[in-house]
């Protein structure tokens, strides 16, 4: 395995002005298998680390409140259902613009702050509704594409779908990869596919969904992460939310380690998005702890970290209200997404 003599350690950048990072991942000029072919991921070891990550750290009181608000700013508030409509998307966008009630935001001392979710995430045909609803808010619109969730539409159509979404105003495209390429270890095919999608994205940021529940092993997760990053993914994302197992910490751990290794080898920065299966405020804290511990504080900000979730926000609101009032809250008190 050819590696640089010295590995640069990525320095944390605490300030995050925007949800999108300015510098994009350029990827590698060609597939570079020696960066991942010999890398081992031991399941039991990863599980132990994941299990103790969250028992080694605890955030309480004001710190917990701050972390939870930070989590809100990282949420890709999502609706990906067959019954989505313009009205549904409009309501979601309204919540994205104002995830906390004014009273609560004031009680937390954040009245001067612009608190929004990280993005809104919808199907391509819903993009125009979202763009309209979010106009002037600065909140990016993310669209899934490429035959989400299975990704088995022919490639030209998948690329066309990306272009459609971008043309409609999407700032971010959450693509799905062809799982077969991973399952058959066909890395050139995966690299070429993601490269083509990245080109189709143009200025929109590419978030590569690896469908980790489908590709099964952590070794595959690591390798697919590396290939997607080499092909220019700006973010790597765990799941579609439609798999049997979605975002879980051992998988996330493996992906963020891949981001770290890729950064050390290439000097490029890639963001991370767990998605699916995360419902509670505690989940949000766990993922933030993972990011801070494994990649540093810079990866707890929305330009490098997103949480793909819909119901998590409601739980966070309740926890924040409890912090502000000292009383346990009820869900009906908070605006629906």
């Amino acid at each position, binding site marked *: 395995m050819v*590696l640089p*003599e*010295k*590995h640069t*350690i990525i320095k944390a950048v*605490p*300030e995050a002005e925007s949800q999108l990072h300015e510098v994009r991942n350029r990827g590698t000029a060609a597939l570079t298998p020696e960066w991942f072919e*010999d890398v*081992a*991921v*031991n*399941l*039991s*070891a*990863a*599980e*132990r*680390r994941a299990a*103790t990550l969250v*028992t*080694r*750290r*605890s*955030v*309480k*009181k*004001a*710190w917990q*409140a*701050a*972390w939870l*608000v*930070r989590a809100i*700013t990282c949420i890709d508030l999502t609706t990906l259902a067959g019954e989505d409509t313009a009205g549904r998307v409009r309501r979601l966008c309204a919540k994205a613009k104002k995830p906390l009630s004014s009273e609560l935001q004031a*009680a*937390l*001392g*954040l009245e*001067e*702050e612009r608190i929004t979710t990280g993005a809104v995430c919808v199907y391509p045909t819903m993009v125009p509704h979202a763009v309209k609803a979010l106009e002037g808010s600065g909140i990016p619109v993310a669209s899934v594409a490429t035959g989400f969730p299975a990704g088995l539409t022919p490639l030209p159509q998948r690329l066309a779908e990306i272009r459609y979404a971008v043309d409609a105003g999407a700032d971010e495209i959450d693509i799905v990869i062809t799982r077969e390429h991973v399952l058959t270890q066909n890395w050139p095919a995966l690299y070429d596919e993601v490269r083509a999608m990245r080109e189709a994205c143009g200025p929109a940021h590419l978030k590569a969904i690896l469908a980790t529940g489908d590709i099964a*092993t*952590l*070794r595959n997760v690591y390798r697919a992460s590396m290939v997607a990053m080499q092909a220019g993914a700006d973010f790597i994302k765990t799941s579609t939310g439609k798999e049997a197992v979605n975002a879980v910490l051992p998988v996330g751990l493996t992906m963020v*380690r891949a981001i770290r290794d890729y950064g050390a080898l290439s000097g490029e920065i890639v963001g991370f998005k767990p998605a699916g299966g995360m419902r509670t405020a505690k989940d949000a804290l766990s993922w*933030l702890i993972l990011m*801070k*511990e494994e990649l540093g*504080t810079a990866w*707890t900000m929305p330009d490098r970290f997103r949480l793909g979730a819909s119901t998590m926000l409601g739980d966070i609101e309740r926890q924040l209200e409890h912090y502000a009032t000292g009383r346990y809250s009820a869900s009906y008190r908070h605006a629906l997404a």
Partner: protein
Amino acid sequence: MEQIRDIMRTMEYGPAPEANEEVSAWLKARAAGIGHFIGGKFIASGKERFATVNPATEAELARVVQGSEAEVDAAVKAARGAFAKWSKLPGHERARYLYAIARHIQKRERFFAVLESMDNGKPIRETRDIDIPLVARHFYHHAGWAEMVESEFEGFSPVGVCGQIIPWNFPLLMLAWKIAPALAAGNTVVLKPAEQTPLTATAFAEICEEVGLPAGVVNIVHGDGRTGAAICAHEDIDKIAFTGSTEVGRIIREAIAGSGKKLSLELGGKSPFIVFEDADLDGAVEGVVDAIWFNQGEVCCAGSRILVQEGVAERFYDKLRRRMETLRVGNPLDKGIDVGAVVSAEQLQRVSALVKQGEEEGCTLWRAPGVLPERGYFFSPSFFTEVDPASTVCGVEIFGPVAVAMTFRTPEEAAELANNTRYGLAASIWSENINLALDAAAKVKAGVVWVNCTNMLDAGSGFGGYRESGFGREGAREGLYEYFVSDVEKALKPAKEAEIFIPRGAPEEERRFAGLSRIDRTAKNYVGGKQSRPDGGYSYDVLGKGGAVIGQAPLGNRKDIRNAVEAAAKAGGWGGVTAHNRAQVLYYVGENLDARREEFEALLSESTGQSAKAASAEFDVALRRIFYYAAQADKYDGAVHATKSRHVTLAMNEPWGVMGIVAPEEAPFAAFVSLVLPAIAMGNRVVAVSSTRHPLLATNLYQIFDTSDVPGGVVNIVTGEKDVLAKTLAEHDEVAAMWYFGGKKGSAMVERASCGNLKATWVSDGRARDWLDDRQARGREFLRRATQVKNIWVPYGE
């Protein structure tokens, strides 16, 4: 509330203190002094007191009474008094108490976790998630054994009153490791906690009271080394179990030599942590965190010698340095702390001095960056590179959060470096190649081997060391034997003290000769598969029937033993051949021996003066023993312990290596065979000292070994003055275990002489054994004593 806005940018963790009001109240209520727990009563009288300090704050937590000989004696009396009834209780009754203890510990889990953290300085995360759950698990597990002792340990009885001395690094867990098996087996105990950490033992005593444990079954006496010495010296204690430093282990071994006390020692370590180039490097980095930066590195089985394959070493060190940056050192009661305080100022001083020495010797120290609290005994997690096996920090157990790191080139070299230590407690092996990992696990000399994991502990697995890390196991079935004595052994009566036969190198003045009926034969020592003349050049007269001289035997000396041990050490291949192969060789020994039956029977009669019928009977026993151990060679196998899910924990019976065996004077043929055969059947190489009076049977036997494909060096035979040879053997550092069958004095001498490398000993203590009786002189007990258990943990899953 500006704070939230700021924290959103820094994403600091902030403080997350665990409340300790309950523990403070408990301590306040005991401000008059923490007393002993003797005969079911708390006794805080006694003038001398010592303070126990919170190492994180340097504040005094409590004052504790120092136990003197009088308190130890009272505790032993209470334990003895309780023993009769406790040991006779049905297993189920004892199980109920152990179950209740487990339950009560769980009910008070957080109280114990906070108290332990305050007394020891370890992070609440560890006491809450590791120490206390393992304590409860240990009592549960042994409640199970208590339920089953009658059926699972038939033929075994509790030892009696056990003196137990435990260290400060895992105060309550070590207490559980000692008390749970002792009580399950039916013993009663006198336990001394470490003087640095006496508090959870006291809280445990209150639980004993709470569950109604009969008075005297558990006694706790506080104090320092003087109290420990009083326990070791007490005549009415039947067994000593000690966990602590190798230095103190040696003192204890010496102090109780010849006392007849059973002994188990769990001592220090400098355990290798081997990272092969195909390992999950990030996983292995976390392994290091769990190995040496766990419990401030105050872990006897800590992976403190990191061995990395050269090609990945720099990358691994980079990852390790990066990981070190995120370790949080500080208030142990904060829930977000990885490393707490070292137990005492003294220990901090010791760690600091060793680290300074390492730097002075030219090793490079990598220290975690964080700022340490101003008060309290804190030390930054660190590791050394540019270390060589000759560096002080590479050989000495630092017992702090400091590892040393070295590189290796080949798996062979990894094993060589791993085993280049006096210790042999644990090893951690990181590789994704199962062939490589298991090969390394087999090669490493350690009682516990963790593949792709480290510091995994469970009551269902045995724990204990090779070499100077001690002997005996704790946990699982193998650990329970430490708290039993076999009924056969217990029933043995003292032998009639026969006059010790001192062989002379010069002919006696008055001799009678049996006469020459055949060509004169020269018996020699048998060393490395060759017959060799004694180094000293002396032989002694062997007296047979009616006191007549029937021949001469070599008068072996120190150098003959040295040569024999060297030859045995070289014959390491024997342990590696298949058990079937060893069985075949042993059967062949039997076959060839049977062919020379008449000769051996005649020699037996001629030597011992016994009748032809008796000689024939002894020969038959010996022959059957050979077949028995040939049969056992591939059947005395280990176990797969049920520990954690998705793990196999393999308990393998491994040979000691080189064993010293000193055969008794009586039954010179049957006894010799009964001792040598189980040892070699299990793969040991043996240096055997035959009966001094009747050496010719043993020397006659080497011809059989020679012609039966027993590889040279597997059996070595030296004749001569028994106790002189035994002493050299017992002192020899290459000899890993020693069996001595002889007088009380010789037994004491062997135990004392074994201190050097802390070899495991089995001595007869002057008791007679009927070597022709299968119950007394044959069986699994001999095989158990011819092996040590290695537990190999292999997690699986992809």
